[in-house]
């Protein structure tokens, strides 16, 4: 059959170029419908096949998960892609099957499939986190489009009980369990006849019974509830709840939880005193040699300890949670003291601030050893702080109305002044910067600061000064009252005219010298640079000269050779010419000689001929008659 010879093609054509004209056929409506329908069925079959393939792949492919059993981002993307592809295929099939398909079918269906796939992956570890073919119905069966919520949480809460968060009920449970535990612990401690006495079980004093996660949540809920109540109380009746009240409330909750009031208190010390310390936990709590005499000589291993703990815990109801036991005793067994914070009063705070400021700012000025400063070179006397800020008396001297007697009462101050030798000091080399000793005015009252400039002509005689004290000057008055002094007054006192003028002069000179130095450095650098350039240029010229000289010598040599060659050639030619001339002469001589001989012979022949004749017949000679 022709149908078996063909294979349907369900490709996408899009835009196609027509190279050549197509063949045409006219068909009846029924034939046309039949052909179309056959093609549609073929397409449907292919789509269904593709769908099956896609589903199988989605179920059997492996999807990577993280260490916490959550799918990796890549796996999730893969699942999304596959779900969408499956949804599209299903949509196409529905459309070709002439079913009604909503516009958002693909999106919703893809989400549903994806969620179903992800849900099943979590629980299917047999195929390395694939979904598994057995889950096909779960994943693809439900045709409704409402997606289920994804449960990405790995925890199973099937066994979780809905605990009543009622504080009273919780307290009752905790109380009962606490009583039970306390009884068990006490019994175990007091029971010496049992196989596994407490002495066999080493206990560490820092071990605490800690609640499970559920129990912690319980406690937290209670605390939160109490706080909420307190808060609401504050909001409702306007009363302010102090921190103390809140603390008491929380403490009250924990007090209810604790069982120390009703149980025998077992302090860590008591436990430690009856039990041997543990030396090596990993070896099953084997005992140290030091304390081996104090306890039973029984080998203890980890299994024994485990059994005892399980036995103790088995007496506690499964649904009752053990509570947290707060350690209200310190290491010495004494009750812990709660820290009580007492805030400072305003007075105390103010006093503390004043103390800080005093220490920071004022105390240092009461140090008797503090000197303002001493500069020997500038001949500034060493003035101590007390000299300035602790006047001798409180007399205010404002004018010259003081009597001589009063002036004489003013104590003389000897300042340890070191006056350098004028001849040895470099500063006084030019005799410019000598202090104005003769015209020194010392301390003057409220006089404006006078800055004097020095000039070369202002050279003073080199008078050595043996003593130099302000007190020698009658115009001085050291009793200066600073109680109403301005900053200018103080600066005038502190900085005498002479020293400042000297300083300024020296500074001026230093600046001048510095400028000169910079100028000289600049010139030096320029000279160096020029010298370097000249050297470079000379070197270049030298190179050029040597090159030209070399060229000249070469040419000279060549010329010499040429001339030599010419000379030798000339000599050769001369020789040749000479030789040729000699040859010519020889030849000439030869010719002459032979010519002479020829002539002679001819003459002789003639003469002979004249004498004898040669018979022409027989060739015999005959004398001529």
């Amino acid at each position, binding site marked *: *059959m*022709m*149908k078996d*010879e*063909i*294979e*349907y*093609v*369900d*490709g996408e*054509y*899009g*835009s*196609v*170029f*027509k*190279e*050549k*004209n*197509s*063949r*045409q*056929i*006219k*068909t*009846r*409506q*029924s*034939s*046309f419908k*039949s*052909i*179309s*329908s*056959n*093609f549609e069925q073929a397409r449907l079959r292919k789509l269904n096949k593709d769908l099956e393939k896609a589903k199988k792949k989605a179920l059997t492919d492996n999807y990577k998960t993280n260490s916490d059993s959550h799918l990796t981002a890549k796996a999730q993307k893969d699942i999304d892609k596959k779900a969408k592809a499956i949804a599209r295929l299903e*949509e*196409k099939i529905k*459309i*070709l099957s002439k079913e009604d*398909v909503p516009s958002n079918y693909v999106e919703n269906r893809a989400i549903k499939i994806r969620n179903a796939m992800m849900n099943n992956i979590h629980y299917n570890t047999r195929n390395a986190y694939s979904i598994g073919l057995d889950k096909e119905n779960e994943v693809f069966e439900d045709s409704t489009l409402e997606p289920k919520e994804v449960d990405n949480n790995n925890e199973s809460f099937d066994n979780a009980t809905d605990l009543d968060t009622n504080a009273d009920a919780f307290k009752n449970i905790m109380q009962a369990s606490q009583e039970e535990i306390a009884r068990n612990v006490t019994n175990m401690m007091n029971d010496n006849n049992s196989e596994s006495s407490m002495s066999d079980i080493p206990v560490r004093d820092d071990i605490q019974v800690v609640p499970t996660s559920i129990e912690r949540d319980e406690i937290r809920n209670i605390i939160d509830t109490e706080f909420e109540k307190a808060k609401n109380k504050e909001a409702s009746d306007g009363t302010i709840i102090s921190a103390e009240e809140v603390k008491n409330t929380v403490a009250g909750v924990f007090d209810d939880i604790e069982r120390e009031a009703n149980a025998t208190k077992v302090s860590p010390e008591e436990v430690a005193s009856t039990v041997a310390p543990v030396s090596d936990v990993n070896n099953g709590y084997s005992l140290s040699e030091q304390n081996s005499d104090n306890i039973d000589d029984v080998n203890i291993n980890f299994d024994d300890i485990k059994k005892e703990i399980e036995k103790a815990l088995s007496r506690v109801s499964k649904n009752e949670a053990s509570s947290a036991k707060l350690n209200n005793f310190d290491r010495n067994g004494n009750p812990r003291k709660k820290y009580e914070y007492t805030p400072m009063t305003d007075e105390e705070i103010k006093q503390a601030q004043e103390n800080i400021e005093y220490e920071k700012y004022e105390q240092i000025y009461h140090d008797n050893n503090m000197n303002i400063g001493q500069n020997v070179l500038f001949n500034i006397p060493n003035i101590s702080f007390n000299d300035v800020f602790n006047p001798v008396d409180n007399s205010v001297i404002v004018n010259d109305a003081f009597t001589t007697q009063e002036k004489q009462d003013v104590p003389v101050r000897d300042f340890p002044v070191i006056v350098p030798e004028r001849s040895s000091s470099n500063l006084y080399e030019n005799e410019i910067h000598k202090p104005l000793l003769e015209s020194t005015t010392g301390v003057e009252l409220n006089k404006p600061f006078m800055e004097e400039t020095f000039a070369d002509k202002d050279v003073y005689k080199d008078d050595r000064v043996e003593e130099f004290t302000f007190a020698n000057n009658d115009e001085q008055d050291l009793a200066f009252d600073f109680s109403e002094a301005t900053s200018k007054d103080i600066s005038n006192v502190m900085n005498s005219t002479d020293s400042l003028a000297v300083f300024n002069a020296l500074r001026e000179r230093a600046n001048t010298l510095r400028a000169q130095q910079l100028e000289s450095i600049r010139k030096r650098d320029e000279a160096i640079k020029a010298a370097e350039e000249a050297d470079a240029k000379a070197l270049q010229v030298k190179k050029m000269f040597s090159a030209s000289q070399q060229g000249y010598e070469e040419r000279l040599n060549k010329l010499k050779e040429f001339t030599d060659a010419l000379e030798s050639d000339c000599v050769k030619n001369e020789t040749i010419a000479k030789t040729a001339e000699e040859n010519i002469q020889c030849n000439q001589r030869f010719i002459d000689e032979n010519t002479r001989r020829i002539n002679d012979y001819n003459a002789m022949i003639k003469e002979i001929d004249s004498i004898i004749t040669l018979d022409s017949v027989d060739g015999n000679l005959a004398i001529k008659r």
Partner: protein
Amino acid sequence: MENQEIEKKMMSIVAEDGSVEEVEVILAFEFKDTKKEYVIYTKNEKDENDNITVYVSNVDRTSGEPKLMGVDDEEEWNRVKDVLRELSKSE
């Protein structure tokens, strides 16, 4: 993809002069032995007797882009007609 586009397979034919014509593909197949692909399409043209004209072209995919070629070989053409004849009968 629109439902219409899925239900009906459409094709845009670009002529030599550059004009574009939208047609509906009603059948596409290839012979298993020759691997030659054929497409039968219609422009929904009906004559006075309600007969529908369909066009048959050979699809050439050798250059990557599909091109519509004519069916020049008579034997080949007869084969195609036989296929169409058979498909028109069965449903």
